């Protein structure tokens, strides 16, 4: 049930805008740590909280108003020079920002946020009053007896735990107890090395919270782009009128050259306008990736601080535009990659000093467009990865066999880190290294029809390259034929096309294979993947590359390539079919989901040479 009945629109608007604002504030806070006396910066941060407070008031989010108000007061004093930024004040401010973000989480779910933790409010009040450094984290010792006691009962008593950590008793149940849940989990896991008050900046980044995050449904579009859409649809209307007039002319028997020429001109104009309109509509969904990047410097800062590392985040290409849905789906993978870079990639300052590197490590996040792809780079100048070590580790964990390990090249070895259950950190830290995450990164990227590649130089650093299609709505496909039936394959998986010569087919281990430039690849006939009978001997092979393997898909013929507009089959989705598209002649074609086809088949061992060539022999 929503606490915001009748204000849903307003709430959406507020959240979109305020979240942006808060990300901006977060970044400015990171800058502020470097330049604590910068008045302009202080002023901007002040205004951020002030604006959020104003909006929250209209939503009757009293707790949010209270928190913002206190923080704003603090900044008022800071910007007027009455107070100076101290590490304690900074901690309180960062804590406040994190809590504001947490409250946004409640608003997103249509629930009034519970109050901020009392010690935070007290910290802020103390800071405003000029008393600094009063906040003391409750010693971890206090936690232990409570934990033991409550665990002895039916399970952890979150209220008692929360009370032990924060020194506050939760009065009401409802959302507040859920909040306690989150806070305690974080506070206790970060108890050593970090102060309990020093929460990671973005609570959402702890990811896997009961999947309660609601997708943003509102989008901000530049009015110029909307105007363009409007303009184009108007012109299409005019062209339609022209066509209507021509139609009645033609139906009335007027079929002279002039009329037909006018018809031709009108149709080509419509053609142009429609593709322009498609582009323009697509553009309304495009958002600068900077909105996504904004929140990362803060996250990295918090992580680095917790681990005692010095890291500078460099952002580049924030203006690059990506489809909005992709921006949302990219958020978690990039956080994982950054966490990894901070935790595993970058060395501690003393290690770096010993290696003759600058103590401050660089983590770089970059986006740019390459043809019809968007490329995202996450790189660090840390210790890099050693393919040898990775193979040994994977072997030890039983993720690969001895034989596989011996056959792996450097690229494949590096890709091992993307396997589920792979974690190179000898000790599991609270930041990363649970062996989950990297495989999630890969799955998420693949869901977006993207690919991820790893390059690493031991001692120099690691770069993760994510390449993504510009949009998810249009998919370049290769049309292949099996008999008379066309099928579409995502072009992103196609490496090359080659003829299948019977005398080049060899049988290894009972399956048909071909050697392509020294690489032994098994041949899988499309017919057998689909469960069809092989009618003709295949004439062509498509070298398909998935993240795990490469193979040759044997087909009968080609029908060209096309930019398919995907219609997804929402209610009815046969296995192995990603969607359908319509060809220019009106024919409906299935777009195949090769990975699913391979998986549904269970074994990908292929067929024997004989089975493959039986028909050929028959024909000959």
């Amino acid at each position, binding site marked *: 049930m929503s606490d915001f009945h009748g204000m849903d629109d307003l709430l959406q*608007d507020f959240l979109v805008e305020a979240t942006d604002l808060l990300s901006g504030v977060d970044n400015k806070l990171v800058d502020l740590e470097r330049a604590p006396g910068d008045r302009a910066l202080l002023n901007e941060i002040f*205004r951020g909280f*002030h*604006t959020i407070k*104003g*909006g929250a008031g*209209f939503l009757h989010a009293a707790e949010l108003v209270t928190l913002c108000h206190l923080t704003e007061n603090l900044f008022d004093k800071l910007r007027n020079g009455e107070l100076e930024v101290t590490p304690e004040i900074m901690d309180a401010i960062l804590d406040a920002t994190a809590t504001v973000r947490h409250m946004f989480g409640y608003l997103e779910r249509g629930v009034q946020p519970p109050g901020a933790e009392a010690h935070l409010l007290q910290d802020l009040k103390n800071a405003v009053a000029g008393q600094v450094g009063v906040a003391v984290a409750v010693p971890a010792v206090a936690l232990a007896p409570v934990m033991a006691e409550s665990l002895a009962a039916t399970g952890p008593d979150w209220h008692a735990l929360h009370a032990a950590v924060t020194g506050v008793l939760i009065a009401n149940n409802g959302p507040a107890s859920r909040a306690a849940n989150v806070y305690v989990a974080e506070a206790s896991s970060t108890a050593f090395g970090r102060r309990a008050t020093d929460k990671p900046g973005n609570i959402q980044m702890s990811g896997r919270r009961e999947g309660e995050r609601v997708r943003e449904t509102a989008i901000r579009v530049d009015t110029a782009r909307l105007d363009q859409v409007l303009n184009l649809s108007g012109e299409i209307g005019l062209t339609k009128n022209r066509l209507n007039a021509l139609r009645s002319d033609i139906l009335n028997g007027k079929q002279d050259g002039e009329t037909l020429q006018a018809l031709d001109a009108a149709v080509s104009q419509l053609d142009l306008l429609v593709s322009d309109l498609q582009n323009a509509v697509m553009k309304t969904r495009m958002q600068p990736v900077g909105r996504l990047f904004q929140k990362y410097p803060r996250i990295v800062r918090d992580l680095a601080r917790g681990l005692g590392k010095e890291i500078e985040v460099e952002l580049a290409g924030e203006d690059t535009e990506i489809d909005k849905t992709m921006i949302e789906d990219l958020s978690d993978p990039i956080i994982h990659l950054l966490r990894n870079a901070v935790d595993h990639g970058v060395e501690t300052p003393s290690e770096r000093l010993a290696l003759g590197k600058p103590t401050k490590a660089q983590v770089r996040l970059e986006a740019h467009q390459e043809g019809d792809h968007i490329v995202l780079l996450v790189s660090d100048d840390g210790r890099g990865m050693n393919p040898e070590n990775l193979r040994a580790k994977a072997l030890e964990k039983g993720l690969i066999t001895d034989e596989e390990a011996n056959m792996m090249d450097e690229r494949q070895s590096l890709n091992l880190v993307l396997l589920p259950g792979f974690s190179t950190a000898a000790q599991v830290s609270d930041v990363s290294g649970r062996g989950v995450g990297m495989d999630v990164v890969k799955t998420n990227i693949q869901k977006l029809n993207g690919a991820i590649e790893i390059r690493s130089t031991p001692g120099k650093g690691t770069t993760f390259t994510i390449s993504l299609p510009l949009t998810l709505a249009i998919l370049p496909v290769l049309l292949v034929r099996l008999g008379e039936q066309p099928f579409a394959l995502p072009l992103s998986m196609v490496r090359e096309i080659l003829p299948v010569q019977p005398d080049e087919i060899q049988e290894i281990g009972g399956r048909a294979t071909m050697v392509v430039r020294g690489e032994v690849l098994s041949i899988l006939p499309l017919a057998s993947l689909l469960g069809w009978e092989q009618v003709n001997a295949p004439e062509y092979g498509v070298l398909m590359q998935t993240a795990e393997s490469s193979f040759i898909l044997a087909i009968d013929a080609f029908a060209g390539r096309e930019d398919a507009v995907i219609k997804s089959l929402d209610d009815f989705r046969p296995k192995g079919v990603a969607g359908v598209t319509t060809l220019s002649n009106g024919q409906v074609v299935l777009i195949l989901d090769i990975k699913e086809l391979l998986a549904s088949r269970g074994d990908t061992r292929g067929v024997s040479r004989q089975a493959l060539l039986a028909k050929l022999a028959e024909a000959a």
Partner: protein
Amino acid sequence: MSDPKMKFLVVDDFATMRRIVRNLLKELGFANVDEAEDGAVALQRLQGGGFDFVVTDWNMPNMDGLQLLQAVRANPALAHLPVLMITAEAKKENIIAAAQAGASGYIVKPFTAGTLSEKLSKIFEKQNAKAA
């Protein structure tokens, strides 16, 4: 003087807030509303003419509400315009500063259509009294 056709300029850097004010004005029957995202933009729009009423936020980048108010009062072509200040501050010194700069009214966030209506009618009354 409260002509439903009169044209409002709502000035705020926060789009959500502009929308809130616009909706409240609409509730009160004023549908002719234009928006500006800071004082500098607002001043430009006002100089273009055609506006009858300004509702402005205080805290904005580039040119804040108080500066806008001062600029409006200093401009003979605009000086007559009623300016209603909206702010989250109920501090005495702020209210005094606004009054000294010649604000026609002062309203503290958050407010309801009722409060806004009350402030507006007070301003209209004053104007009518002046005109009479």
